[in-house]
């Protein structure tokens, strides 16, 4: 296993052990979609006055 893969595995496993939510980025998912997933985890409500960037 490459060192980078080993390090990513370490980060993922230690987060899971502590019960931090882990999101995998496959590079194909847009930053907007990743941001939406994180917002759902935190229960954030979108401010209609802040349209945000369209990265999709």
């Amino acid at each position, binding site marked *: 296993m490459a060192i980078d893969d080993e390090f990513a595995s*370490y980060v993922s496993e230690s987060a899971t052990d502590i019960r931090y939510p882990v999101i995998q980025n*496959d590079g194909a998912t847009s930053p907007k979609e990743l941001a939406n997933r994180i*917002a759902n985890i935190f229960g954030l409500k979108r401010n209609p006055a802040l349209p945000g960037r369209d990265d999709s």
Partner: protein
Amino acid sequence: MWLGRSFAGGKSTTARVLAESYGLEVYHVDRDIITNPELESVRVADPEWFWLPVSARLERYRKVISHVHVFEQARVLSETDDIIAEGPCLLPEFLDNNKIKPSDAVVLVPTPEHQRFANTKRRKHWSRDILDDFDDKTKA
């Protein structure tokens, strides 16, 4: 709110999009690292990083965390704004050691395929930078 990540986990872009959409301020921990002269020897954004074993990488991150006082800085910023702090040194063990609750943090990690793609891009960029120091780039 804390956004930790491994290298190439999602970059700062995700934090920026999140901030723009939900009215948050972003605390980019990397910027404190880049501007701190005491951290010249432990910066992670260099070619040597690729060959460091996991234990050595963790040691570098520990030095970074202890120097830039990330958690104290974030607490100060959060007194006036809702913030999202993001950075590669926000590893789970450091978040946990600083009593960051699981409900306040998310960890982004790249898939192995995306990690390799991102690293290939970085290596090409660094190779070009290194060659700029030589008169005879072909020989170098």
